[in-house]
Protein backbone atom coordinates (compact mmCIF):
# COMPACT_ATOMS: atom_id res chain seq x y z
CA UNK A 1 0.00 0.00 0.00
CA UNK A 2 1.07 3.53 -0.50
CA UNK A 3 1.48 5.93 2.33
CA UNK A 4 0.16 8.76 0.25
CA UNK A 5 -1.07 10.58 3.26
CA UNK A 6 -1.69 9.68 6.85
CA UNK A 7 -5.29 10.37 6.10
CA UNK A 8 -5.53 7.47 3.71
CA UNK A 9 -4.60 4.77 6.12
CA UNK A 10 -8.18 3.86 6.83
CA UNK A 11 -9.01 3.63 3.18
CA UNK A 12 -5.85 1.72 2.39
CA UNK A 13 -6.39 -0.85 5.08
CA UNK A 14 -9.92 -1.49 3.93
CA UNK A 15 -8.88 -1.75 0.32
CA UNK A 16 -6.00 -4.12 0.91
CA UNK A 17 -7.84 -6.67 2.96
CA UNK A 18 -10.83 -6.64 0.71
CA UNK A 19 -13.25 -6.72 3.60
CA UNK A 20 -16.05 -4.35 4.36
CA UNK A 21 -16.13 -2.22 7.44
CA UNK A 22 -18.45 -4.59 9.26
CA UNK A 23 -16.52 -7.73 8.42
CA UNK A 24 -13.58 -8.86 10.50
CA UNK A 25 -11.02 -6.11 9.95
CA UNK A 26 -7.95 -8.20 9.13
CA UNK A 27 -7.08 -11.83 9.40
CA UNK A 28 -3.56 -11.20 10.61
CA UNK A 29 -0.33 -11.39 8.68
CA UNK A 30 -0.64 -15.02 7.65
CA UNK A 31 -4.21 -14.81 6.45
CA UNK A 32 -3.43 -11.63 4.53
CA UNK A 33 -0.38 -13.22 2.99
CA UNK A 34 -2.31 -16.27 1.93
CA UNK A 35 -5.03 -14.09 0.49
CA UNK A 36 -2.42 -12.31 -1.61
CA UNK A 37 -0.75 -15.56 -2.59
CA UNK A 38 -3.95 -17.18 -3.85
CA UNK A 39 -4.30 -14.57 -6.54
CA UNK A 40 -0.83 -14.96 -8.01
CA UNK A 41 -0.46 -17.19 -11.07
CA UNK A 42 3.27 -17.43 -10.39
CA UNK A 43 2.54 -19.10 -7.08
CA UNK A 44 0.32 -21.74 -8.66
CA UNK A 45 2.72 -22.45 -11.53
CA UNK A 46 5.59 -22.87 -9.08
CA UNK A 47 3.56 -25.04 -6.71
CA UNK A 48 2.41 -27.30 -9.53
CA UNK A 49 5.96 -27.74 -10.80
CA UNK A 50 7.23 -28.54 -7.32
CA UNK A 51 4.38 -30.98 -6.82
CA UNK A 52 5.30 -32.83 -10.03
CA UNK A 53 8.96 -32.87 -9.02
CA UNK A 54 8.10 -34.30 -5.61
CA UNK A 55 6.02 -37.09 -7.14
CA UNK A 56 8.91 -37.75 -9.52
CA UNK A 57 11.33 -38.02 -6.63
CA UNK A 58 9.10 -40.23 -4.49
CA UNK A 59 7.65 -42.50 -7.17
CA UNK A 60 9.98 -42.46 -10.20
CA UNK A 61 8.46 -45.71 -11.43
CA UNK A 62 5.22 -43.87 -12.21
CA UNK A 63 7.08 -42.13 -15.01
CA UNK A 64 9.42 -44.80 -16.29
CA UNK A 65 10.01 -48.50 -15.90
CA UNK A 66 13.51 -48.37 -17.39
CA UNK A 67 16.46 -48.98 -15.07
CA UNK A 68 18.53 -45.78 -15.05
CA UNK A 69 21.72 -47.83 -14.69
CA UNK A 70 20.96 -50.10 -17.67
CA UNK A 71 23.60 -49.21 -20.23
CA UNK A 72 23.92 -50.50 -23.76
CA UNK A 73 27.15 -49.28 -25.31
CA UNK A 74 25.93 -50.31 -28.72
CA UNK A 75 23.30 -47.57 -28.47
CA UNK A 76 25.78 -44.91 -27.28
CA UNK A 77 24.62 -41.42 -28.20
CA UNK A 78 21.45 -42.59 -29.94
CA UNK A 79 19.06 -39.82 -30.95
CA UNK A 80 15.65 -39.48 -29.33
CA UNK A 81 13.35 -42.28 -30.46
CA UNK A 82 10.17 -43.99 -29.23
CA UNK A 83 12.47 -46.43 -27.45
CA UNK A 84 14.20 -43.70 -25.43
CA UNK A 85 12.34 -40.45 -25.93
CA UNK A 86 15.23 -38.21 -24.82
CA UNK A 87 17.81 -40.39 -26.58
CA UNK A 88 20.80 -42.08 -24.99
CA UNK A 89 24.04 -40.83 -23.50
CA UNK A 90 27.63 -41.89 -24.14
CA UNK A 91 27.27 -45.05 -22.06
CA UNK A 92 23.97 -45.89 -23.74
CA UNK A 93 21.85 -45.00 -20.70
CA UNK A 94 18.26 -43.96 -21.32
CA UNK A 95 18.43 -40.20 -20.65
CA UNK A 96 14.72 -39.92 -19.84
CA UNK A 97 14.91 -42.65 -17.20
CA UNK A 98 18.02 -41.11 -15.69
CA UNK A 99 16.48 -37.64 -15.64
CA UNK A 100 13.43 -38.98 -13.80
CA UNK A 101 15.51 -40.90 -11.31
CA UNK A 102 17.79 -37.90 -10.94
CA UNK A 103 15.03 -35.96 -9.18
CA UNK A 104 15.32 -37.81 -5.87
CA UNK A 105 19.02 -37.19 -5.04
CA UNK A 106 18.82 -33.64 -6.35
CA UNK A 107 15.79 -32.74 -4.25
CA UNK A 108 17.17 -34.59 -1.23
CA UNK A 109 20.30 -32.49 -1.28
CA UNK A 110 18.27 -29.31 -1.79
CA UNK A 111 15.89 -30.12 1.05
CA UNK A 112 18.47 -31.25 3.59
CA UNK A 113 20.82 -28.40 2.76
CA UNK A 114 18.17 -25.71 3.12
CA UNK A 115 16.83 -27.30 6.31
CA UNK A 116 20.32 -27.51 7.78
CA UNK A 117 21.20 -23.97 6.76
CA UNK A 118 18.02 -22.55 8.21
CA UNK A 119 18.24 -24.47 11.49
CA UNK A 120 21.91 -23.77 12.10
CA UNK A 121 21.70 -20.19 10.87
CA UNK A 122 18.55 -19.43 12.83
CA UNK A 123 19.86 -20.75 16.11
CA UNK A 124 23.09 -18.81 15.71
CA UNK A 125 21.27 -15.69 14.54
CA UNK A 126 18.73 -15.76 17.36
CA UNK A 127 21.46 -16.28 19.90
CA UNK A 128 23.53 -13.43 18.49
CA UNK A 129 20.62 -11.04 18.18
CA UNK A 130 19.08 -11.85 21.52
CA UNK A 131 22.24 -12.00 23.62
CA UNK A 132 23.90 -9.05 21.90
CA UNK A 133 27.17 -7.56 23.10
CA UNK A 134 30.11 -9.94 23.27
CA UNK A 135 28.14 -13.03 22.36
CA UNK A 136 26.95 -11.27 19.24
CA UNK A 137 30.49 -10.25 18.30
CA UNK A 138 31.86 -13.75 18.75
CA UNK A 139 29.11 -15.41 16.73
CA UNK A 140 29.26 -12.76 14.04
CA UNK A 141 33.04 -13.03 13.62
CA UNK A 142 32.74 -16.81 13.57
CA UNK A 143 30.14 -16.57 10.82
CA UNK A 144 32.36 -14.20 8.85
CA UNK A 145 35.11 -16.79 8.85
CA UNK A 146 32.85 -19.05 6.83
CA UNK A 147 31.32 -16.26 4.81
CA UNK A 148 34.85 -15.22 3.87
CA UNK A 149 35.33 -18.42 1.88
CA UNK A 150 33.94 -18.09 -1.64
CA UNK A 151 31.38 -20.87 -2.05
CA UNK A 152 32.91 -22.91 -4.84
CA UNK A 153 36.43 -22.53 -3.51
CA UNK A 154 35.32 -23.62 -0.05
CA UNK A 155 33.38 -26.51 -1.52
CA UNK A 156 36.40 -27.70 -3.46
CA UNK A 157 38.69 -27.51 -0.44
CA UNK A 158 36.31 -29.32 1.88
CA UNK A 159 35.16 -32.03 -0.50
CA UNK A 160 38.60 -32.86 -1.88
CA UNK A 161 39.95 -33.10 1.64
CA UNK A 162 37.51 -35.85 2.48
CA UNK A 163 37.53 -37.60 -0.88
CA UNK A 164 40.61 -37.76 -3.04
CA UNK A 165 39.83 -36.95 -6.68
CA UNK A 166 38.52 -40.00 -8.47
CA UNK A 167 37.96 -41.91 -5.23
CA UNK A 168 34.87 -44.09 -5.26
CA UNK A 169 32.52 -43.26 -2.39
CA UNK A 170 29.20 -44.66 -1.27
CA UNK A 171 25.89 -43.00 -2.03
CA UNK A 172 24.90 -42.04 1.50
CA UNK A 173 28.36 -40.80 2.39
CA UNK A 174 28.70 -38.47 -0.59
CA UNK A 175 25.17 -37.08 -0.20
CA UNK A 176 25.88 -36.36 3.47
CA UNK A 177 29.19 -34.72 2.61
CA UNK A 178 27.69 -32.50 -0.07
CA UNK A 179 24.85 -31.45 2.22
CA UNK A 180 27.19 -30.65 5.10
CA UNK A 181 29.53 -28.74 2.82
CA UNK A 182 26.69 -26.57 1.55
CA UNK A 183 25.41 -26.00 5.10
CA UNK A 184 28.83 -25.09 6.48
CA UNK A 185 29.40 -22.56 3.71
CA UNK A 186 25.89 -21.09 3.65
CA UNK A 187 24.67 -20.83 7.24
CA UNK A 188 26.08 -17.30 7.73
CA UNK A 189 23.45 -15.98 5.29
CA UNK A 190 20.56 -17.40 7.31
CA UNK A 191 22.27 -16.27 10.48
CA UNK A 192 22.42 -12.67 9.25
CA UNK A 193 18.73 -12.59 8.38
CA UNK A 194 17.74 -14.05 11.72
CA UNK A 195 20.13 -11.83 13.65
CA UNK A 196 18.81 -8.68 12.00
CA UNK A 197 15.23 -9.72 12.70
CA UNK A 198 16.02 -10.62 16.30
CA UNK A 199 17.91 -7.37 16.88
CA UNK A 200 14.94 -5.43 15.57
CA UNK A 201 12.49 -7.41 17.67
CA UNK A 202 14.51 -6.93 20.85
CA UNK A 203 14.24 -3.18 20.32
CA UNK A 204 10.45 -3.32 20.10
CA UNK A 205 8.53 -1.94 23.02
CA UNK A 206 6.37 -5.02 23.40
CA UNK A 207 9.45 -7.18 23.83
CA UNK A 208 10.85 -4.75 26.37
CA UNK A 209 7.49 -4.84 28.10
CA UNK A 210 7.48 -8.63 28.13
CA UNK A 211 10.95 -8.55 29.64
CA UNK A 212 9.91 -6.05 32.24
CA UNK A 213 7.00 -8.29 33.15
CA UNK A 214 9.46 -11.06 33.86
CA UNK A 215 9.12 -13.25 30.80
CA UNK A 216 12.09 -15.56 30.43
CA UNK A 217 14.36 -15.58 27.38
CA UNK A 218 12.83 -18.77 25.95
CA UNK A 219 9.37 -17.36 26.17
CA UNK A 220 10.38 -14.07 24.58
CA UNK A 221 12.16 -15.83 21.74
CA UNK A 222 9.33 -18.28 21.15
CA UNK A 223 6.41 -15.89 21.53
CA UNK A 224 7.71 -12.55 20.35
CA UNK A 225 10.76 -12.97 18.16
CA UNK A 226 10.26 -16.21 16.23
CA UNK A 227 6.81 -15.37 14.82
CA UNK A 228 8.12 -12.11 13.40
CA UNK A 229 11.17 -13.67 11.83
CA UNK A 230 9.47 -16.68 10.34
CA UNK A 231 8.32 -15.04 7.11
CA UNK A 232 11.74 -13.77 5.93
CA UNK A 233 13.44 -17.01 6.92
CA UNK A 234 10.79 -19.06 5.13
CA UNK A 235 11.24 -17.04 1.96
CA UNK A 236 15.00 -17.41 2.28
CA UNK A 237 14.68 -21.18 2.72
CA UNK A 238 12.47 -21.55 -0.34
CA UNK A 239 14.76 -19.56 -2.60
CA UNK A 240 17.84 -21.28 -1.18
CA UNK A 241 16.24 -24.65 -1.91
CA UNK A 242 16.48 -23.75 -5.57
CA UNK A 243 19.91 -22.21 -5.23
CA UNK A 244 21.23 -25.29 -3.46
CA UNK A 245 19.96 -27.55 -6.22
CA UNK A 246 22.07 -25.45 -8.55
CA UNK A 247 25.00 -25.60 -6.12
CA UNK A 248 24.80 -29.39 -5.96
CA UNK A 249 24.87 -29.53 -9.74
CA UNK A 250 27.85 -27.18 -9.85
CA UNK A 251 29.81 -29.32 -7.40
CA UNK A 252 28.91 -32.43 -9.38
CA UNK A 253 29.93 -30.65 -12.55
CA UNK A 254 33.37 -30.01 -11.06
CA UNK A 255 33.62 -33.72 -10.26
CA UNK A 256 33.75 -33.24 -6.50
CA UNK A 257 30.06 -33.52 -5.60
CA UNK A 258 27.66 -36.35 -6.24
CA UNK A 259 29.02 -38.94 -8.64
CA UNK A 260 28.29 -42.31 -10.13
CA UNK A 261 26.53 -44.52 -8.94
CA UNK A 262 24.34 -41.66 -7.74
CA UNK A 263 22.27 -40.28 -10.59
CA UNK A 264 21.52 -36.57 -10.26
CA UNK A 265 21.03 -33.93 -12.92
CA UNK A 266 24.37 -32.41 -12.03
CA UNK A 267 26.09 -35.79 -12.43
CA UNK A 268 24.43 -36.22 -15.83
CA UNK A 269 25.53 -32.77 -16.98
CA UNK A 270 29.03 -33.42 -15.71
CA UNK A 271 29.20 -36.67 -17.69
CA UNK A 272 27.78 -35.01 -20.77
CA UNK A 273 30.07 -31.98 -21.00
CA UNK A 274 32.99 -33.77 -22.68
CA UNK A 275 30.96 -34.87 -25.67
CA UNK A 276 28.45 -32.06 -25.84
CA UNK A 277 29.12 -31.54 -29.54
CA UNK A 278 28.22 -35.13 -30.48
CA UNK A 279 25.53 -35.91 -27.93
CA UNK A 280 23.84 -32.58 -27.11
CA UNK A 281 20.73 -34.30 -25.75
CA UNK A 282 22.74 -35.72 -22.85
CA UNK A 283 23.42 -32.14 -21.72
CA UNK A 284 20.18 -30.52 -22.76
CA UNK A 285 17.61 -32.66 -20.95
CA UNK A 286 19.17 -32.82 -17.47
CA UNK A 287 19.99 -29.11 -17.76
CA UNK A 288 16.36 -28.39 -18.63
CA UNK A 289 15.13 -30.41 -15.65
CA UNK A 290 17.61 -28.62 -13.41
CA UNK A 291 16.65 -25.16 -14.61
CA UNK A 292 12.94 -25.84 -14.28
CA UNK A 293 13.41 -27.16 -10.74
CA UNK A 294 15.50 -24.19 -9.62
CA UNK A 295 13.09 -21.82 -11.34
CA UNK A 296 10.13 -23.38 -9.52
CA UNK A 297 11.64 -22.81 -6.10
CA UNK A 298 12.88 -19.32 -6.86
CA UNK A 299 9.45 -18.38 -8.23
CA UNK A 300 7.73 -19.80 -5.17
CA UNK A 301 10.05 -17.87 -2.87
CA UNK A 302 9.45 -14.73 -4.90
CA UNK A 303 5.70 -15.11 -4.75
CA UNK A 304 5.76 -15.74 -1.01
CA UNK A 305 7.97 -12.74 -0.39
CA UNK A 306 5.77 -10.47 -2.49
CA UNK A 307 2.71 -11.69 -0.63
CA UNK A 308 4.17 -11.04 2.78
CA UNK A 309 6.12 -7.93 1.91
CA UNK A 310 4.22 -6.03 -0.76
CA UNK A 311 6.61 -3.10 -0.90
CA UNK A 312 8.61 -4.54 -3.78
CA UNK A 313 5.87 -4.98 -6.35
Amino acid sequence: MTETAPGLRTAGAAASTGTGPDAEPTGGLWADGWDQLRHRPLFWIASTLIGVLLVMALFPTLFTSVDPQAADLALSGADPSPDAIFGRDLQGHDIYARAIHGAAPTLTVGLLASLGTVVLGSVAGLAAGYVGGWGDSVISRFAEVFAGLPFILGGIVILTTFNKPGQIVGEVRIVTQVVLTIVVLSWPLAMRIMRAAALEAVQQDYVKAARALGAGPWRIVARHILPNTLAPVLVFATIQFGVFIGAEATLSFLGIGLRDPVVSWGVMISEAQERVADIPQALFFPAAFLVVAVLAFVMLGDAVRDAFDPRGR
Partner: protein
Amino acid sequence: MGRYTLRRLLQLVPVFLGTTFIVYVLVWGLSDDPFAGKCGQRECSASYVAQMTERYNLDDPLVLQYLKYLGALLTGDFGQTFSGTEVSTLIADAYPVTIQLALVAVVIEALIGVAAGVLTGLRGRGFVDNLVLVSTLVLIALPVFVTGLVLRQVLGVELGWIRPSVPGDPTIGQLIVPGFVLGSLSMAYVARLTRTSLVENARADFVRTAVAKGLPRRRVVGVHMLRNSLIPVVTFLGYDVGALMGGAIVTEGVFNIRGIGGLVFRGIQQQDIATVVGIVSLLVVVFLLANLLVDLLYAVLDPRIRYD
Protein backbone atom coordinates in the same frame (compact mmCIF):
# COMPACT_ATOMS: atom_id res chain seq x y z
CA MET B 1 35.77 7.72 9.53
CA GLY B 2 39.41 7.02 10.31
CA ARG B 3 38.59 5.27 13.54
CA TYR B 4 35.89 3.28 11.87
CA THR B 5 38.25 2.13 9.14
CA LEU B 6 40.80 1.08 11.73
CA ARG B 7 38.21 -0.81 13.72
CA ARG B 8 36.98 -2.62 10.63
CA LEU B 9 40.54 -3.50 9.65
CA LEU B 10 41.13 -4.95 13.11
CA GLN B 11 37.92 -6.94 12.81
CA LEU B 12 39.24 -8.46 9.61
CA VAL B 13 42.25 -9.96 11.40
CA PRO B 14 40.43 -12.74 13.27
CA VAL B 15 38.34 -13.50 10.20
CA PHE B 16 41.44 -13.78 8.06
CA LEU B 17 43.20 -15.96 10.65
CA GLY B 18 40.15 -18.17 11.08
CA THR B 19 39.55 -18.71 7.40
CA THR B 20 43.15 -19.40 6.48
CA PHE B 21 43.58 -21.66 9.49
CA ILE B 22 40.58 -23.74 8.52
CA VAL B 23 41.87 -24.07 4.99
CA TYR B 24 45.36 -24.90 6.24
CA VAL B 25 44.07 -27.60 8.56
CA LEU B 26 41.82 -29.04 5.87
CA VAL B 27 44.52 -29.40 3.27
CA TRP B 28 47.59 -30.15 5.40
CA GLY B 29 46.35 -31.53 8.67
CA LEU B 30 43.77 -33.96 7.41
CA SER B 31 45.79 -35.61 4.66
CA ASP B 32 47.35 -38.75 6.10
CA ASP B 33 50.21 -38.89 3.62
CA PRO B 34 50.99 -35.65 1.84
CA PHE B 35 53.47 -37.43 -0.42
CA ALA B 36 51.14 -40.09 -1.75
CA GLY B 37 51.48 -40.26 -5.51
CA LYS B 38 54.04 -37.45 -5.62
CA CYS B 39 56.77 -39.60 -7.06
CA GLY B 40 54.97 -41.59 -9.69
CA GLN B 41 54.30 -45.22 -8.86
CA ARG B 42 57.23 -45.58 -6.45
CA GLU B 43 57.54 -44.61 -2.84
CA CYS B 44 59.22 -41.26 -2.48
CA SER B 45 62.88 -41.40 -1.62
CA ALA B 46 63.85 -40.70 1.97
CA SER B 47 65.88 -37.66 0.94
CA TYR B 48 62.89 -36.19 -0.96
CA VAL B 49 60.61 -36.75 2.02
CA ALA B 50 63.16 -35.18 4.34
CA GLN B 51 63.55 -32.18 2.04
CA MET B 52 59.80 -31.63 1.75
CA THR B 53 59.29 -32.14 5.47
CA GLU B 54 61.90 -29.49 6.05
CA ARG B 55 60.38 -27.13 3.49
CA TYR B 56 56.86 -27.32 4.87
CA ASN B 57 57.82 -27.72 8.55
CA LEU B 58 55.90 -30.97 8.68
CA ASP B 59 57.59 -32.16 11.88
CA ASP B 60 56.17 -29.27 13.85
CA PRO B 61 52.76 -29.39 15.51
CA LEU B 62 50.04 -28.21 13.16
CA VAL B 63 49.49 -24.87 14.85
CA LEU B 64 53.18 -24.05 14.71
CA GLN B 65 53.33 -25.09 11.06
CA TYR B 66 50.47 -22.73 10.39
CA LEU B 67 52.08 -19.87 12.27
CA LYS B 68 55.38 -20.34 10.44
CA TYR B 69 53.48 -20.38 7.15
CA LEU B 70 51.59 -17.27 8.14
CA GLY B 71 54.82 -15.50 9.11
CA ALA B 72 56.26 -16.21 5.69
CA LEU B 73 53.00 -15.14 4.05
CA LEU B 74 53.11 -11.77 5.77
CA THR B 75 56.52 -11.09 4.27
CA GLY B 76 55.06 -11.85 0.86
CA ASP B 77 56.48 -15.37 0.67
CA PHE B 78 53.75 -17.69 -0.61
CA GLY B 79 56.05 -20.69 -0.46
CA GLN B 80 56.94 -23.16 -3.18
CA THR B 81 55.11 -25.95 -4.92
CA PHE B 82 56.31 -29.53 -4.57
CA SER B 83 58.20 -29.11 -7.79
CA GLY B 84 59.89 -26.02 -6.44
CA THR B 85 58.17 -23.26 -8.38
CA GLU B 86 57.42 -20.12 -6.38
CA VAL B 87 53.67 -19.95 -5.74
CA SER B 88 53.86 -16.17 -6.03
CA THR B 89 55.09 -16.56 -9.61
CA LEU B 90 52.14 -18.75 -10.44
CA ILE B 91 49.78 -16.23 -8.93
CA ALA B 92 51.39 -13.32 -10.71
CA ASP B 93 50.96 -15.16 -14.01
CA ALA B 94 47.37 -16.17 -13.46
CA TYR B 95 45.77 -13.36 -11.49
CA PRO B 96 45.70 -10.57 -14.11
CA VAL B 97 43.38 -12.59 -16.35
CA THR B 98 41.03 -13.32 -13.47
CA ILE B 99 40.92 -9.67 -12.46
CA GLN B 100 40.18 -8.65 -16.05
CA LEU B 101 37.45 -11.26 -16.27
CA ALA B 102 35.87 -10.13 -12.99
CA LEU B 103 35.93 -6.49 -14.07
CA VAL B 104 34.43 -7.30 -17.48
CA ALA B 105 31.73 -9.28 -15.70
CA VAL B 106 30.92 -6.46 -13.28
CA VAL B 107 30.82 -3.86 -16.02
CA ILE B 108 28.45 -6.02 -18.09
CA GLU B 109 26.18 -6.81 -15.16
CA ALA B 110 26.14 -3.18 -14.07
CA LEU B 111 25.29 -1.85 -17.53
CA ILE B 112 22.61 -4.37 -18.43
CA GLY B 113 21.28 -4.87 -14.92
CA VAL B 114 20.90 -1.20 -14.07
CA ALA B 115 19.45 -0.40 -17.49
CA ALA B 116 16.85 -3.15 -17.17
CA GLY B 117 16.07 -2.16 -13.60
CA VAL B 118 15.66 1.52 -14.38
CA LEU B 119 13.55 0.79 -17.45
CA THR B 120 11.11 -1.36 -15.51
CA GLY B 121 11.27 0.62 -12.29
CA LEU B 122 10.25 3.87 -13.96
CA ARG B 123 7.72 2.44 -16.38
CA GLY B 124 5.86 0.27 -13.91
CA ARG B 125 3.90 -2.79 -14.86
CA GLY B 126 3.59 -3.76 -18.46
CA PHE B 127 5.11 -5.97 -21.10
CA VAL B 128 8.72 -4.87 -20.61
CA ASP B 129 8.38 -5.28 -16.87
CA ASN B 130 7.14 -8.85 -17.20
CA LEU B 131 9.78 -9.66 -19.78
CA VAL B 132 12.55 -8.45 -17.50
CA LEU B 133 11.04 -10.21 -14.49
CA VAL B 134 10.88 -13.54 -16.31
CA SER B 135 14.39 -13.05 -17.72
CA THR B 136 15.81 -12.42 -14.27
CA LEU B 137 14.07 -15.52 -12.93
CA VAL B 138 15.56 -17.63 -15.71
CA LEU B 139 19.02 -16.15 -15.17
CA ILE B 140 18.79 -16.88 -11.46
CA ALA B 141 17.69 -20.43 -12.19
CA LEU B 142 20.45 -21.12 -14.73
CA PRO B 143 23.62 -22.43 -13.09
CA VAL B 144 26.70 -20.68 -14.47
CA PHE B 145 28.11 -23.86 -15.96
CA VAL B 146 24.93 -24.49 -17.94
CA THR B 147 24.95 -20.95 -19.33
CA GLY B 148 28.63 -21.35 -20.06
CA LEU B 149 28.37 -24.71 -21.77
CA VAL B 150 25.40 -23.63 -23.85
CA LEU B 151 26.96 -20.33 -24.96
CA ARG B 152 30.27 -22.01 -25.68
CA GLN B 153 28.51 -24.63 -27.76
CA VAL B 154 26.17 -22.28 -29.61
CA LEU B 155 28.34 -19.17 -30.11
CA GLY B 156 31.65 -20.97 -30.24
CA VAL B 157 31.08 -24.27 -31.96
CA GLU B 158 27.88 -23.90 -33.99
CA LEU B 159 27.99 -20.24 -35.01
CA GLY B 160 31.74 -19.78 -34.77
CA TRP B 161 31.41 -16.21 -33.46
CA ILE B 162 33.81 -16.71 -30.59
CA ARG B 163 36.66 -19.10 -29.86
CA PRO B 164 35.32 -21.83 -27.60
CA SER B 165 38.58 -21.74 -25.70
CA VAL B 166 40.02 -18.38 -24.66
CA PRO B 167 43.73 -18.01 -25.54
CA GLY B 168 46.50 -17.47 -23.02
CA ASP B 169 46.68 -13.70 -23.09
CA PRO B 170 43.14 -12.71 -24.02
CA THR B 171 41.92 -9.34 -25.22
CA ILE B 172 38.96 -7.69 -23.54
CA GLY B 173 36.81 -8.64 -26.53
CA GLN B 174 37.56 -12.31 -26.02
CA LEU B 175 36.50 -12.01 -22.39
CA ILE B 176 33.10 -10.54 -23.11
CA VAL B 177 31.17 -13.79 -23.45
CA PRO B 178 32.87 -15.42 -20.43
CA GLY B 179 32.31 -12.19 -18.52
CA PHE B 180 28.65 -12.26 -19.43
CA VAL B 181 28.40 -15.85 -18.22
CA LEU B 182 30.20 -15.03 -14.97
CA GLY B 183 28.09 -11.96 -14.32
CA SER B 184 24.75 -13.33 -15.48
CA LEU B 185 23.44 -14.30 -12.04
CA SER B 186 24.40 -11.00 -10.46
CA MET B 187 22.98 -9.19 -13.47
CA ALA B 188 19.58 -10.57 -12.57
CA TYR B 189 20.00 -9.47 -8.97
CA VAL B 190 21.16 -6.00 -10.02
CA ALA B 191 18.12 -5.59 -12.26
CA ARG B 192 15.75 -6.63 -9.49
CA LEU B 193 17.47 -4.59 -6.83
CA THR B 194 17.43 -1.47 -9.01
CA ARG B 195 13.79 -1.95 -9.84
CA THR B 196 12.64 -2.57 -6.26
CA SER B 197 14.70 0.28 -4.97
CA LEU B 198 13.34 2.69 -7.60
CA VAL B 199 9.76 1.68 -6.96
CA GLU B 200 10.25 2.22 -3.24
CA ASN B 201 11.92 5.57 -3.70
CA ALA B 202 9.35 6.76 -6.21
CA ARG B 203 6.89 6.95 -3.33
CA ALA B 204 9.32 8.49 -0.89
CA ASP B 205 8.35 11.76 0.72
CA PHE B 206 11.48 13.51 -0.48
CA VAL B 207 10.57 12.73 -4.08
CA ARG B 208 7.19 14.33 -3.51
CA THR B 209 8.98 17.32 -2.04
CA ALA B 210 11.13 17.58 -5.14
CA VAL B 211 7.99 17.54 -7.28
CA ALA B 212 6.35 20.11 -5.04
CA LYS B 213 9.36 22.38 -5.51
CA GLY B 214 8.50 22.50 -9.20
CA LEU B 215 11.73 20.86 -10.38
CA PRO B 216 11.77 19.48 -13.93
CA ARG B 217 10.80 15.83 -14.17
CA ARG B 218 14.26 14.85 -15.40
CA ARG B 219 15.82 16.47 -12.37
CA VAL B 220 13.42 14.74 -9.98
CA VAL B 221 14.11 11.34 -11.48
CA GLY B 222 17.79 11.75 -12.17
CA VAL B 223 18.90 13.45 -9.00
CA HIS B 224 16.38 12.58 -6.34
CA MET B 225 15.16 9.13 -7.33
CA LEU B 226 18.12 7.54 -9.10
CA ARG B 227 20.87 8.67 -6.77
CA ASN B 228 19.09 7.31 -3.73
CA SER B 229 18.00 4.15 -5.48
CA LEU B 230 21.45 3.30 -6.77
CA ILE B 231 23.16 3.33 -3.39
CA PRO B 232 22.23 -0.30 -2.60
CA VAL B 233 23.01 -1.28 -6.19
CA VAL B 234 26.50 0.19 -6.03
CA THR B 235 27.11 -1.61 -2.75
CA PHE B 236 25.97 -4.88 -4.25
CA LEU B 237 28.27 -4.41 -7.23
CA GLY B 238 31.16 -3.70 -4.90
CA TYR B 239 30.64 -6.90 -2.95
CA ASP B 240 30.31 -8.72 -6.23
CA VAL B 241 33.74 -7.63 -7.49
CA GLY B 242 35.19 -9.24 -4.38
CA ALA B 243 33.13 -12.38 -4.81
CA LEU B 244 33.77 -12.76 -8.54
CA MET B 245 37.51 -12.55 -8.13
CA GLY B 246 37.36 -15.73 -6.10
CA GLY B 247 34.42 -17.35 -7.79
CA ALA B 248 35.44 -17.67 -11.42
CA ILE B 249 36.51 -21.31 -11.13
CA VAL B 250 33.60 -22.68 -13.14
CA THR B 251 33.64 -20.02 -15.85
CA GLU B 252 37.39 -20.27 -16.22
CA GLY B 253 37.01 -24.04 -16.48
CA VAL B 254 34.33 -23.90 -19.15
CA PHE B 255 36.18 -21.42 -21.35
CA ASN B 256 39.60 -22.79 -20.53
CA ILE B 257 40.86 -19.47 -19.21
CA ARG B 258 44.18 -19.83 -17.42
CA GLY B 259 43.31 -17.73 -14.42
CA ILE B 260 43.47 -18.14 -10.69
CA GLY B 261 40.41 -20.40 -10.60
CA GLY B 262 41.98 -22.91 -12.92
CA LEU B 263 45.20 -22.71 -10.92
CA VAL B 264 43.54 -23.53 -7.63
CA PHE B 265 41.47 -26.27 -9.21
CA ARG B 266 44.53 -27.91 -10.73
CA GLY B 267 46.36 -27.45 -7.44
CA ILE B 268 43.69 -29.42 -5.66
CA GLN B 269 43.58 -32.15 -8.27
CA GLN B 270 47.36 -32.52 -8.10
CA GLN B 271 47.34 -32.26 -4.32
CA ASP B 272 49.66 -29.30 -4.50
CA ILE B 273 48.92 -28.05 -1.07
CA ALA B 274 51.10 -24.95 -0.97
CA THR B 275 49.46 -23.56 -4.09
CA VAL B 276 45.99 -24.13 -2.71
CA VAL B 277 46.62 -22.56 0.67
CA GLY B 278 48.46 -19.63 -0.87
CA ILE B 279 45.75 -18.81 -3.36
CA VAL B 280 42.90 -19.29 -0.95
CA SER B 281 44.59 -16.98 1.55
CA LEU B 282 45.05 -14.37 -1.13
CA LEU B 283 41.45 -14.64 -2.32
CA VAL B 284 40.16 -14.35 1.22
CA VAL B 285 42.15 -11.17 1.72
CA VAL B 286 40.87 -9.75 -1.56
CA PHE B 287 37.30 -10.64 -0.65
CA LEU B 288 37.53 -9.13 2.83
CA LEU B 289 39.20 -5.95 1.61
CA ALA B 290 36.60 -5.54 -1.10
CA ASN B 291 33.88 -5.77 1.53
CA LEU B 292 35.63 -3.22 3.70
CA LEU B 293 36.00 -0.83 0.77
CA VAL B 294 32.32 -1.20 -0.03
CA ASP B 295 31.38 -0.39 3.56
CA LEU B 296 33.47 2.75 3.41
CA LEU B 297 32.03 3.65 0.02
CA TYR B 298 28.57 3.27 1.48
CA ALA B 299 29.39 5.85 4.11
CA VAL B 300 30.47 8.24 1.39
CA LEU B 301 27.31 7.67 -0.66
CA ASP B 302 24.86 7.82 2.21
CA PRO B 303 25.76 10.59 4.64
CA ARG B 304 23.34 9.23 7.23
CA ILE B 305 25.80 6.48 8.00
CA ARG B 306 28.11 7.99 10.55
CA TYR B 307 30.65 5.56 11.76
CA ASP B 308 32.48 7.56 14.38
